[in-house]
């Protein structure tokens, strides 16, 4: 034996040595090793420190259940993954891993003093201790606890990896690639449907990989599987969640098992699988036994010892003691002995064991002690020996050993079964819950169904010992450091339900979700309470089965593909002009166009002046647009909007105000009647989908008798807003088929013709108070028309402007922006939009609500202007307004600032606000308290420019 590597055996490739580093030291293993098996082969027993007491810990298991050996794998800058189970990290050349939760080093850990003063950390410690004083939580407790009790450190650098995702469909999905799973997949394949088989290991076979007698069968099954064209095998894939209607989430690891230099393509792939039938073949997890010192590095599950020997060709120790309560421990001991591992003794709590096992052990020369229990494990960083006694209370005897294997029976893995809401049934024979009745079309096979012969045994709570349980370091939950005494304490302190015991002790609440601890915790609670386990319940397993990366769950939603950024057809032009952009719902819009290093303030003042004095052009393509067509189009709009629509003549436009049924403003926009039975509606950019959805709702479910249909045309039309006194002059040479004369084409008229040779719906409308047009052209011609207008405008000093300038220009005129000046609780009257409400209409959406008493009660906030006493003072949007700045705190607030800008036209700052009884306060002074000072402002009408509207009709 070289180190702990056995001379032969295992499924490793001894011709392919693999070099790796752990905690700064070089080691070597073989292809086919996991990090865990290679470390054991290299003589490493200490793999981590426990969560609370920082006790030295080694491996417990060999698979997904591993609670202790959490490591950080470093694949180069920004590719650091913490909290990986060493048992599931495939070895590759150059692997760099380190232990976690130790400071300053694994062997010498300062916080291990927690262990010495362990009495200070009883069950419920966090609940009891860190409650007071409240201020100390953020300042002291939380940072300290996080440092001391943390898992691995989260990487801080941006993840450079890519992740893939896909949906998949199959008639049968088999989860678990052991013999039962493979056989289920082969059976399913016979029916001819699509079959997917998922397995989390590098190699199919599950438990059979640790049983040489089954290898020929395994080889045969895998060959048959390879011959089935309708079976897709997903290896290195973990089914982490089982959702409604057989929807399974799984993550396939694609590159982590490869050396970084060999890794190409995405790191992981998220599989979202819809299956006709799900077959669960997840196997079973061995149960630890609970006894004093059961967490000393070197105390492991018997199945782990077997896997090390049979699969990886590694001896778990040079002298191994097996502590059994179950036949499988004997079988494992015998298999290990045959593989060349020295078994110092088998101790079994049972007085009588099956004769064939006892006989085989004697034949193998293994010392056997039945009716006995380990009472103590010596050693701190590694096992040095055990004491044991008949019934745990008899005279103690000592055996020198360097590994102790626990065979406490088996827990069928019902995790995914429980995700799928299948019921569980207590099995006395297994001492565990087994799948009961499925809700989904799902069945369990093999060991996870209790349908696998692993032998028989007895279930114990805590192994008997002369010492009281409070004096023992007998662990139940290794990852969260929950001892048997903690569960005793929880029961003593009044916890009765396992849900309470779990939360009080944190048993089963670590990242392993209690894969090895839940049943032992239940058994102990049951014993202390003197009630059957099934009466105490079982905590619920929830996804994910094992922790998954955020990257995998995000799939391809990353970087540029994170989410769609909607851009208009003018976006390229704006980019070339150096525009600064802002996001408006999913759209990216040009906010302003700085020239020569201009600030936003300077650029916006310049753009505003250009519109007021000459002409500006603005990309309004993102406005929502809906084509409303049908004989009942006008009737429908009349019911939806507050104002009358039936009398609107074709060729005319109208401002429409849309309420929700509760009477509050939802959206607004200018719409045109194209023909008797055809309207061109506009909505706000952010409201487009919402408005269409609401209108469809009324049309489909309330007024389905109306012959009218809605079609989203938001993306059909590019819209160029041309605003300013020179607007008409700019387009005059480009427009054909429309008389642009002011009398023929007045304000709020719409015409069809061509512009720059492109068919257009040309509306004379204004959101600036200036003479203006909105030029609608098919989107794919939008850029061409934009360029033509821009060129034609050069002679008139045309200036492109962005959303910020648009906001200022409309604020100077007191035009509201729904969602900025309104907040979902504002009525038309609140906003001074009474004129847009059809008083004679018998009904429209929201009308009845406007008649509720509170909707025009005194004290409602009303839309007003604010002028600060200091004309250079710019208020902050959202700032609160008060009537008396000397009122005691909390002082009554009467409203808030909704919009505030520097106005070129007004020559000063302006603001809009909603203030209680605001219109009655016009002329009064109000106060805006800000940190360290109070700003004074005068309430005005919400109108700062051209109140007569003379420019509009120019």
């Amino acid at each position, binding site marked *: 034996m070289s180190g702990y590597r056995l001379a032969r055996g295992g499924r490793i490739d001894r011709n392919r040595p693999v070099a790796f580093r752990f905690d700064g030291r070089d080691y070597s293993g073989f292809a086919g090793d996991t990090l865990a098996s290679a470390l054991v082969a290299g003589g490493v027993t200490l793999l981590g420190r426990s969560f609370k007491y920082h006790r030295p810990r080694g491996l417990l298991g060999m698979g997904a259940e591993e609670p202790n050996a959490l490591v950080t794998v470093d694949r180069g800058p920004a590719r650091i993954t913490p909290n990986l189970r060493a048992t599931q990290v495939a070895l590759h050349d150059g692997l760099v891993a380190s232990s976690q939760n130790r400071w300053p080093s694994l062997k010498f850990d300062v916080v291990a003093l927690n262990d010495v003063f362990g009495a200070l950390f009883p069950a419920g410690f966090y609940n009891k201790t860190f409650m007071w004083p409240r201020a100390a939580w953020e300042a002291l407790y939380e940072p300290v606890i996080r440092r001391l009790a943390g898992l691995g450190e989260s990487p801080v650098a941006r993840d450079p990896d*890519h992740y893939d995702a896909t949906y998949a469909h199959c008639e049968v999905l088999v989860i678990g690639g052991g013999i039962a799973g493979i056989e289920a997949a082969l059976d399913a394949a016979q029916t001819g449907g699509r079959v997917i088989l998922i397995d989390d290991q590098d190699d199919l076979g599950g438990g059979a990989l640790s049983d040489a007698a089954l290898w020929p069968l395994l080889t045969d099954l895998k060959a048959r599987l390879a011959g089935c064209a309708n079976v897709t095998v997903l290896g290195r894939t973990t089914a982490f969640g089982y959702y409604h209607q057989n929807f399974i989430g799984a993550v396939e690891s694609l590159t982590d098992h490869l050396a970084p230099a060999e890794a190409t393509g*995405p790191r992981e792939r998220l599989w979202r699988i819809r299956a006709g039938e799900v077959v669960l073949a997840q196997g079973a997890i061995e149960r630890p036994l609970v006894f004093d010192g059961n967490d000393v590095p070197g105390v492991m599950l018997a199945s782990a010892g077997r896997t090390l020997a049979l699969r990886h060709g590694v001896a778990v120790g040079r002298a191994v003691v097996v502590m059994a309560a179950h036949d499988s421990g004997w079988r494992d001991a015998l298999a290990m002995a045959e593989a060349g591992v020295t078994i110092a003794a088998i101790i079994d709590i049972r007085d009588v064991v099956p004769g064939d096992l006892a006989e085989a052990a004697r034949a193998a020369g293994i010392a056997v002690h039945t009716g006995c229990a380990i009472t103590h494990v010596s050693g701190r960083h590694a096992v040095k020996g055990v004491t044991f006694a008949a019934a745990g209370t008899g005279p103690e005897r000592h055996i020198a050993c360097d590994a102790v294997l626990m065979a406490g029976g088996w827990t069928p893995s019902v995790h995914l079964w429980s995700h799928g809401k299948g019921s569980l049934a207590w099995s006395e024979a297994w001492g565990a819950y087994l799948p009961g009745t499925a809700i989904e079309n799902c069945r369990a096979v093999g060991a996870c169904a209790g349908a696998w012969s692993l032998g028989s045994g007895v279930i114990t709570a805590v192994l008997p010992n002369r010492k009281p349980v409070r004096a023992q370091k007998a662990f139940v939950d290794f990852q969260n450091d929950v001892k048997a005494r903690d569960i005793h304490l929880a029961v003593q302190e009044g916890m009765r339900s396992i849900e309470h015991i779990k939360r009080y002790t944190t048993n089963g609440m670590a990242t392993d979700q209690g894969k090895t601890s839940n049943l032992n915790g239940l058994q102990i609670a049951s014993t202390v309470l003197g009630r059957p386990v099934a009466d105490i319940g079982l905590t619920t397993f929830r996804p994910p089965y094992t922790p998954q990366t955020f990257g995998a769950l995000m799939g391809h939603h990353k970087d540029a593909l994170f989410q769609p950024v909607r851009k208009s057809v003018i976006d390229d032009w704006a980019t070339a002009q150096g525009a600064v952009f802002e996001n408006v719902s999913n759209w990216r819009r040009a906010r302003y166009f700085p020239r020569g290093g201009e600030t936003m303030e300077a650029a916006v003042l310049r753009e505003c002046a250009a519109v007021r004095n000459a002409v500006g052009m603005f990309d309004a393509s993102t406005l929502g647009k809906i084509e409303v067509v049908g004989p009942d189009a006008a009737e429908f709009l009349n019911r939806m909007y507050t104002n009358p629509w039936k009398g609107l003549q074709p060729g005319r436009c109208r401002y429409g105000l849309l309420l929700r049924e509760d009477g509050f403003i939802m959206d607004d926009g200018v719409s045109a009647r194209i023909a008797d039975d055809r309207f061109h509606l506009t909505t706000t950019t952010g409201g487009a989908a919402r408005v269409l959805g609401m209108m469809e709702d009324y049309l489909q479910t309330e007024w389905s008798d109306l012959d009218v249909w809605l079609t989203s045309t938001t993306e059909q039309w590019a819209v160029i807003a041309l605003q300013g006194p020179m607007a008409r002059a700019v387009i005059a040479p480009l427009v054909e088929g429309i008389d642009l004369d002011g009398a023929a084409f007045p304000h709020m008229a719409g015409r069809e013709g061509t512009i720059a040779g492109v068919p257009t719906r040309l509306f004379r409308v204004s959101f600036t108070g200036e003479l203006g047009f909105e030029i609608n052209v098919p989107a794919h011609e939008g850029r061409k028309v934009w360029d033509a207008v821009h060129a034609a405008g050069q002679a008139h000093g045309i200036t492109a402007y962005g959303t910020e300038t648009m906001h200022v220009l409309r604020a100077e005129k007191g035009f509201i922006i729904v969602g900025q000046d309104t907040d979902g609780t504002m009525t038309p009257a609140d906003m001074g939009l009474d004129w847009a409400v059809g008083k004679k209409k018998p009904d429209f959406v929201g009308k009845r609500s406007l008649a509720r008493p509170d909707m025009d009660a005194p004290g409602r906030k009303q839309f007003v202007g604010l002028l600060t006493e200091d004309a250079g003072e710019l208020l902050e949007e959202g700032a609160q307004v008060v009537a008396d700045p000397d009122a005691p705190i909390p002082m009554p607030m009467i409203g808030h600032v909704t919009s505030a800008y520097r106005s070129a036209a007004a020559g000063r700052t302006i603001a809009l606000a909603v203030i209680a009884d605001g219109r009655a306060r016009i002329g009064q002074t109000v106060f805006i308290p800000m940190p360290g000072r109070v700003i004074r402002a005068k309430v005005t009408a919400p109108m700062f420019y051209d109140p007569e509207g003379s420019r509009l009709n120019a």
Partner: protein
Amino acid sequence: MLEIAPLAVAGIDLATGTAAVNGMVSGLPVCIAPAAPLTRWSLRARDAGALSAAIGRALPDRIGVVIDGIARLGPDEWYALLPEGTVLPGGAGLPVSVVEVTARAVGFTVEGAGAVAALARGCPLDLAGFAPGRATRTVFETVEVQIWATAPETYHVEVWRSFAPWLWHSLAAGLALTAGLD
């Protein structure tokens, strides 16, 4: 490691000048390419007969089925993908809605033995049984699309213009990312 360039392209660029992309998904070849120019019409009516008469064309009577370039998307909704330049009567005064939406969307073709796998990366429908002649509105991740099965292993994907760059790059990234891997 493949880097995805920032999405500096507008939808119109994809419609007019984007080169086809060839690659593999799940070991199967896929080609995605901008579709040839088409005219698009949203057609609505309570009575299919009235609509059929108004536009002078036959209409599929089952939801999800295509006849002569017209798909039935819903009980009162059809969508026409017709050769460039086709003009349909407007149906003025009739209980129908005929709205041209040529510029609203752009089309891609996804073609090849891996076409279903390429679409399945973001589309939750089981397309294995989605035979030629079928069409439906659905989603690709968060983006609404229409998928038309136009021929064996050939799909036409319609997407609103401003979502087209995202969709195109998502499909292309799937090809590039998985190429040579499976």
